[in-house]
């Protein structure tokens, strides 16, 4: 990470979890260091938002579909760390072929139309937000998305536009595929906060 403070200044209550991560993953992931560092300022409310957006809020989208949206947004932002992490969580829940199809603009014909339209909506919101309007919503609705589903997708999109930028500005280390897979099992079962 480009800053040393997040690793240096950690709550003592998190140290047992960090030790477990060192044992299971080989290191404490930079995203954990950044979100456990001064938690009242950023990490605690951010993780509460992500956990609600992806896991606990009532949504027409499944948890796997919301993880997929996180991966798509991260890929659109060219965030290697978050794309790797959420490709792993999406693959854990939806399978690798569906995840790969969503991340490949040319490979999305195999996705359900409503999901594909939702993905395209959040991509546009990520890359060209000033251009997003009611026409984009109508296109997604015409493909089978719902207003509630889009609102749910927007929460995930927004949260990942936050963490993608922090991950890249601080240069979170992209570790091994194995460690992302282990972390994905933990996240999909136990959540983010």
């Amino acid at each position, binding site marked *: 990470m480009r800053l040393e403070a997040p690793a240096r200044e950690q709550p003592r209550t998190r140290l047992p979890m960090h030790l477990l991560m060192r044992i299971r993953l080989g290191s404490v992931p930079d995203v954990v260091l950044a979100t456990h560092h001064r938690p009242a300022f950023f990490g605690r*409310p951010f993780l*509460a938002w992500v956990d609600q957006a992806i896991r606990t809020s009532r949504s027409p989208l499944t948890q796997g579909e919301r993880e997929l949206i996180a991966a798509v947004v991260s890929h659109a932002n060219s*965030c*290697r760390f978050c794309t790797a992490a959420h490709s792993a969580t999406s693959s854990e829940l939806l399978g690798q072929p569906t995840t790969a199809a969503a991340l490949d603009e040319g490979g999305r014909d195999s996705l359900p139309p409503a999901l594909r339209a939702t993905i395209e909506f959040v991509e546009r919101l990520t890359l060209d937000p*000033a251009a997003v309007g009611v026409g984009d919503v109508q296109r997604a609705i015409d493909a089978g998305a719902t207003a509630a589903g889009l609102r749910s997708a927007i929460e995930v999109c*927004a949260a990942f536009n936050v963490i993608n930028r922090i991950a890249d500005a601080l240069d979170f280390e992209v570790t091994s595929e194995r460690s992302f897979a282990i972390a994905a099992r933990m996240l999909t079962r136990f959540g983010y906060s």
Partner: protein
Amino acid sequence: MEDQPAERLASAVLGPEGRTEVVHREAAMKHASAIAHGGRTPVLSLPGPEPEALAGLLETTARHAYRVTDEQVAALRSAGYAEGTLFELIVATAVGAGLGRRQIGLAAVAEWERAAAGDRRGEA
């Protein structure tokens, strides 16, 4: 009103847990949100010995954070910026970029719902 987790995040980043002056955190957040909305963005007035370089880091973070370099951050640390300042302003910028997009997306859905409700009333 803080009834949404996203709004609680914004309040935390602008709140008393921050160590930099709130005016600078707020400026960074609003700047990134303004970029998302398009159009003119306010001039980013920042503290310290190299305010233009710091503004450059935050602009890059808001627009395309994958382009931030080791050298950019190292130069600001060498110039005397505390890591806490850099962390807080990067976070504030990122939160502004995310919340700006949230606002745009939710507004578009709300506008669609109003139009759809109007269409249904017209048909009734």
